């Protein structure tokens, strides 16, 4: 259910996908997304759940300017990223989008602070130290700041990945099963962090096969066999 405040403040969605389709395999024999549409509003925490292979990750990749849909149109802040050059899409990703992956995808040779800061590199920015400290504190990573990923627990790794996604204050965060490898305590920390982010002028789109996440989000969509059934 969309929060009333969002409906009032953000009548126009920030990210829009209209009738997008995507197929894989020889002759596009495996249809993953079939003519689906989705909007993501500002300050909205939207979750999508569904079984494995239903196209959740593909949808995230398309919305994250990483994969061109076969059909349909994606608009971010009213422009279509797929009508731009690859280098421009990279710039859009660095300015507008933060990614969180189920398996964290941290850079193995960088410590926690460096992993967080590296997402500011494409923007040519030196990350804000206060913001970094705040994120380390919120995500309970203070004592791990100089540790490399191999020295971290799964929860710490995911919290580092969340901090990395948030350090540049992107307009929206795309989270692919962020709690998939976490225990209850860490799941709560992660969801709370994402909730807080969406409450502070950001948007979050999270996909998960876990249906219990809907209580943390503003709106929840259920996905099956390439389509949505809105709740």
């Amino acid at each position, binding site marked *: 259910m969309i929060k009333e405040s969002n409906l009032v403040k953000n009548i126009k969605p920030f990210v829009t996908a209209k009738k997008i389709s995507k197929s894989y395999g020889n002759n596009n024999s495996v249809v993953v997304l079939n003519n689906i549409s989705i909007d993501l509003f500002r300050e909205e925490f939207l979750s999508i759940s569904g079984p494995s292979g239903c196209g959740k990750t593909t949808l995230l990749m398309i919305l994250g300017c*990483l994969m061109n849909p076969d059909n349909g149109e994606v608009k971010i802040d009213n422009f279509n990223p797929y009508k731009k050059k690859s280098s421009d899409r990279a710039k859009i990703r*660095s300015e507008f989008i933060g*990614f969180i*992956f189920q398996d964290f*995808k*941290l*850079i193995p040779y960088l410590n926690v602070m460096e992993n967080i800061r*590296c*997402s500011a590199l494409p923007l040519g920015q*030196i990350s804000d130290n206060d913001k970094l400290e705040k994120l380390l504190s919120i995500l309970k990573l203070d004592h791990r700041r100089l540790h490399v990923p191999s020295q971290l627990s799964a929860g710490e790794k995911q919290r580092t990945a969340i901090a990395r996604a948030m350090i540049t204050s992107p307009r929206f965060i795309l989270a692919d099963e962020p709690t998939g490898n976490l225990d209850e305590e860490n799941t709560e920390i992660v969801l709370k962090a994402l909730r807080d982010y969406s409450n502070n002028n950001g948007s979050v789109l999270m996909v998960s096969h876990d249906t219990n996440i809907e209580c943390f989000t503003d709106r929840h969509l259920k996905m099956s066999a390439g389509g949505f059934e809105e709740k």
Partner: protein
Amino acid sequence: MNIRLLVFREIRFNLGGFTAGVLAIFLSLISYLIAGSINADLRINTSKKLQLMNSELNEEVTALEDGIRKSMKGLGFNIYIYPENQDLSAVYERGYGDKTMPENYVSKLANSKIIHINHLLPRLTEMVDWSEKDRSVLLIGVRGEVPIAYRGPNIKKPLINPVKEGSIVLGYELHHAYGLKVGDKVNFLDDEYTVSITHKRRGTVDDISLWMNLSLVQKILNKEDKINTILALECNCESLDRLGEIRNEIHKILPETKIIEKESRALARAEARNLTKFTGEKQIQNFLQSKKELIHIQSIFSFGFVIIICILCSFWISHLTISNINQRLIEIGTFTAIGFGGKKIMILILSRVLLMGLIGGMLAVLLFVITCPNVFGYDVYKNVTNNFSFIIIVLIAPLTLAVMSAWIPVLRAVLKDPVDVLRND
């Protein structure tokens, strides 16, 4: 936080692979430098050996030349002056010339300021039948030595005394065959002469020669005031082209003459000197040619070896880069997701490869600079390093080799769809 830090952190993280890459570059460059040093060493040694050979040859030739000068100075040498139209093949065939020239030619020479000739002997020679004895003899009309006027009276004993009119000088065969002795009377072409001198056996044409007064012979042969040769004896000239020098001098006085040299010890020595010089030069040329071939073959083999090493190292670096990139596919996908463009990712990977080339190259040069002067000597070190191509190769080759070897894997990594990595993982 910057790209540089990322590169250094990654190198520290994958130090083994990086070190292996550095080693590949190091091996390539050091093999090139060693090959270059070996070739330079051979070139320099050849050059030194050639210098030594040249110097030895020059010493030998100089010694021979000194010998020639000394022998020419002491012995002098003899020349024949013939009329210009004299066919020399006739001279060499008969032993005398059949053409004549005016007798006053000898006076011209004697009255000139000629410096290279000491004695002048005009002659008229012809083979005639000694009808009284029914045999052929070589009739030689001689006038005795004509003194060279500007030198004043000759205080030395003349080389040849003139034959008085009415006298006759006989070679060994002539007086021995007929039992003639000095003071005997003998008929020659209807006139009677007194034998004044009988020569011992010489084993030459002199043994059948008969000498008479020149004017008498001119009358007998109907060649009044004519001679067919002037024998110039004890010519002195210290230069090696003595004949040329004397020819020049004589031709200024008697332009219508032809001059040939009578064999002498000095000539033999000059020939020996020429032969020594020719043989020595030939030996040097042969040595140089064989060394050139050796240098050429060695260059081909050594640089072939270097090329093989470079190709192997290039595959090695390529393999290492592929392994490195395969290890880093997730990292590359992640960087792409957070907004790194293809160029930045390429810089990230190529910087590592360039550093590999830089460090490998520097280590090779360092080892070369430390060891080359001790192993091959300073000359070789200088020869190799004082070379523009050396500087270019040392600066560019390691980096080029590293980048070229890694280029295709890097390009593949950059062009790889990040979604494949992010999704498949």
